[in-house]
Each structure stands twice: as C-alpha cells, then as structure tokens.
C-alpha cells in the first residue's frame, strides 16, 4: 500500500510528511481529581487524572520515604478501538505502557519535595488512532501541572515513523499498523534531554537519526502548545480570584 502519495507527497489522511495532527488540550475535566486533563491528537483522545500528593496507601510499595511514590495506570476504554472488545485489566500491553508513562513522568517530577506521599496518575484512552503512548504522556504532563506538582520541565512525547522511504511525523492508526518502524520519543524541551525512546523495528543508523530529529521537533511543538494551554488557564484562575 502507498502511505505517501508519490505525486503529491501527501499521506493517507492528507497530511504532509512532517505535519502533525490537530492538537487540543483542556485542563480541569475531572471534578474530584487534584489535576486532570483531556488531550487530543487528531482522532486520538486521552483523558488523564492525577490524585495526590497524598498519604501512601500501601506502605509496602514505598521504597524510599524521602521521595514521593509515583504510580500510573493506563487503560484503554472498551469503545476506544474499531472493534469493541473487553480488555482484561492487567494485560501485557497496558502494563508495559503504564510502566513507560510512570518512568517518564517520574523523571520530571521533583519527588524529593514531597516526602512520604504518593502521586497517582490515571490515563484512559477514549479514542485510539495511533500514538496513544505519546498522547498519554502529554495528557499526564498537563494533568500534573494542573495539580500543582513541581516538575523539572515539561515532558512531551511524539511518535515518528519511516514508510515509503519518507520519515513521517505523528503516525495515525493506518500508518502505525503498516508494520514499519515506530519511534516514540519523550523529551524535556528546556533541558534538551530525552527521557523516553522506544522503537519496535529495525532502522539504519542515519535514517534513525532523521526520524528521531523529526520526533523531537514534534515534541517541541507540542511543548509550546501545552505551555500556552497552561498559561491561559493560570491567567484565568488568577484573574477570577482577583
């Protein structure tokens, strides 16, 4: 199948190879959570809720009482994919993604400022159209910032792939299931550091670099957008407070 039109250079959904899908971020969508956010990348839609920092519920999980314990749960809604299927709770895929998100967020949260407490992050995929991992990390970042949890930097994530000898930014479901390489990058914009790098295929060294650079560019664009959303929200709250 042609994923990039050889004449026009457009992709299956009409985007250019280095074009991202429409972003939308909204803060404060769950009433009872300390922080929450909805994040959309095109048709991928993810909701995140953050509870805490709060008292550690299961003392056995606490490794180091000087740092906050970060927990994360990723789940896909039954209705999120094309075929409606009940997904068992602890399947391998979601356990792995939970772990990935947890490690990425833990790297940016200043856990030493909140000793003897725990932070719970719940992310749920409402609509899956490729790049859920990236969207989940972005949603979690927004929700953590909304909850007023101190962070080193804004972590953003974006995926990129390589199909029809073209590097493609922000793969959708069709491109994702084409079987080509899919590189997901988590990036700290201000500090210029990579916190997550996942790839599930082989890619020549020099191509990999261009693909990764493309993904990093995507991360930077998302970071700008997220900061805009947060700044606007902060200004609104402050003005209403008076």
């Amino acid at each position, binding site marked *: 199948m042609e994923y990039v039109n050889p004449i026009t250079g457009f992709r299956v959904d009409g985007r250019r190879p280095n074009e991202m899908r429409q972003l939308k971020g909204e803060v*404060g969508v769950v*009433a009872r959570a*300390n*922080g929450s956010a909805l994040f959309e990348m095109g048709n991928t839609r993810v909701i995140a809720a953050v509870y*805490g*920092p*709060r*008292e*550690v519920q299961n003392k056995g999980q606490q490794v180091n009482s000087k740092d*906050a314990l970060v927990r994360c749960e990723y789940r896909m809604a039954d209705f999120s994919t094309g075929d409606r299927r009940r997904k068992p709770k602890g399947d391998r895929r979601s356990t792995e993604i939970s772990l990935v998100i947890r490690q990425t967020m833990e790297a940016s949260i*200043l856990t030493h400022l*909140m*000793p*003897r*407490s725990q932070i719970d992050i719940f992310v749920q995929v409402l609509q899956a159209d490729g790049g859920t991992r990236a969207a989940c990390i972005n949603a979690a970042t927004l929700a953590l*910032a*909304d*909850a*007023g*949890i*101190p*962070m*080193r*930097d*804004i972590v953003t994530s974006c995926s990129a792939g390589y199909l029809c000898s073209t590097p493609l930014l922000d793969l959708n479901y069709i491109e994702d299931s084409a079987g080509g390489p899919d590189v997901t990058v988590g990036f700290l*914009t*201000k*500090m210029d550091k990579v916190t997550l790098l996942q790839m599930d295929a082989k890619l020549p060294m020099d191509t990999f670099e261009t693909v990764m650079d493309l993904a990093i560019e995507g991360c930077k664009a998302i970071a700008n957008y997220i*900061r805009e959303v*947060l*700044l606007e*929200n*902060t*200004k*609104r*709250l*402050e*003005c*209403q*407070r*008076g």
Partner: protein
Amino acid sequence: MRDLQLSLNQTQRVRLEAALHELQTVAPAAAVTVADTIPVNDEDNILKGHGTSDQDGEVVATLCGVVERVNKLVYVRTLRARYKPEVGDIIVGRVIEIAPKRWRLEINFSQDAVLMLSSMNLPDGIQRRRTAVDELNMRTIFEENDVICAEVRGFQHDGSLHLQARSQKYGKLERGQLLVVPAYLVKRRKQHFHHLEQYDVDLILGCNGFIWVGEHVVVGENANMMENKLNLSAEVENFTPLVTRKHICRLANAVRVLSALGFTLTVELIIETAEASVSSNIEINNMLGAEFYVQTAEREVKRRADLLRKKSGAR
C-alpha cells in the same frame, strides 16, 4: 467550571462570558508555567523560594502560578495545588484513623496530619498527664469521620505535620456542613472563625480549603454543655431549628457558587452572596442553578469595578 454542571441558555452564556471576560481585563498578572524562565534583574543576590529551581544560572519555575517578589525573595505562588501548611494556620480536617495516642486527620496536605492526645485540651478542662485510661477513651473525644477544627503546630523532624487544639474554640464540629474548596481561594487572615449573628451560624474558613458552616456554639459555656449532655432533656434542645438549618444551607450554597466561579472566599463576599439570593427571591435549591451563577459573576464584576474606582478616586 469544575464543580458545577450547568445548563446555560443562550443569553446566560453570553452574559457569563461577558462577565468573565471583564474580569480578565482587570489584573495583569505575572503568570508563569512549568519551565518558564523568571526574569531576575540583579542576578547576584536573590533568594529562590518555593516553585523555583536553578538551571544553568537561570531561575526557572517548577510550577504553574504567579511570580511573587518580596525584597530579594522570588517564589511562585501556586493556584490549583494542594494545601501547604504554615505554622499557626487554622484548619478544618476529618479524622480518618485513631492510632496510639494520636488521631490522623485528612487535611488536603500531601500526607495525613497528626493530632496528639497530649496536644489537646481534655474535655474536663484539667491540665494533667495523659494516662492509659485517657488513651483508651480517645474515641469518646473524636471518632473516625468526625470533623475537627485545629491549628497547625509545626513539622516534626521526620517531616510529619502536627496539629494542636489547645483552646475551647477548637474541637469537634457538629450540626453543619463541610465544604471542600481549592485551598488557594482562602486567604490567610487574622480571623478565621466567624459568628454570623444575624443567622446564628458559625463559619470557619480553614486555610486548607475546608470550610465549615454550622450552627452557632457558645464557646464559653462548653463546660456546662458537657453536663447538659448528661440530661436527656437537653437532647431535645440540641435540635437545630429549621430557620438555622435553612441559613446554613443558603450560606453553604453561596460558598459553592463562589468557589465554582473561582472567586476568593471572604466572609463579606459569602454574606453578600447569600443576602443577594434572599433579596432576589431565589430559593435555596435554585442557588446552584444557572441564573444565580451568572448573577453572582456579574455582581462580582461590578464590585471589583467599584473598588477600582474608589482606589483611583482616593488618589
């Protein structure tokens, strides 16, 4: 609008948007988000406070909020975050556990607060060492799920937060409503206990964002009340009259509307809102409806405009 699910009609939506837009134009705030650089003029000697960190010689915000400067200190004041205790704060909390010689309280902090048996007055009012018998009788003072008012005593060496309740005004709160609002909406003031005489209601604005609206209790006669409790006839007198209960509900709903709109909660504003609902003939159950919500926003806009005018007039 986190807490209220409103169904606004077209005109109400336009009015609300206009009012909120009006508020936006008033205050130019130095808002920052995570990883924003905070501009510092004299680089050498500033103190970096909460919510800031040092990255390659730059002062960088680690939180979303508003930059505050006090002399050389630069810090970020957060908005929607959990409560950050300071010594001497008056807080309202809920007992979640009884442990040896202490109660554990949920106060919207990053960990549970501890109220030691030894740091509170005994009901009989006698100063003495707490015995094992006192320890066994702890449930007669506070049980699980009781709502308590106390004061922040300080942090222990291990980082846990201790409370104290060494006065008659602290203690168990009964016959009223507990409201949970974001902590940034309550400002620290001299007075957090308010007795609203016209309603016969006590209003406690806890610094942690827990707000108590309840029937007025006479503090000085607390000792007598303990005796009264022994009399069964007193139980009947302890019944809260309907008028007071209505007042409690009205004030509580005023707090709910104000917190949903994100306005700072002061006694004056709460009373004003409750009075406004009376004067415009709005029933208690309709206070959380769209119309009153919009009216409250509009009233606040007017109030702030008046304040501004007064300020410029004084100059």
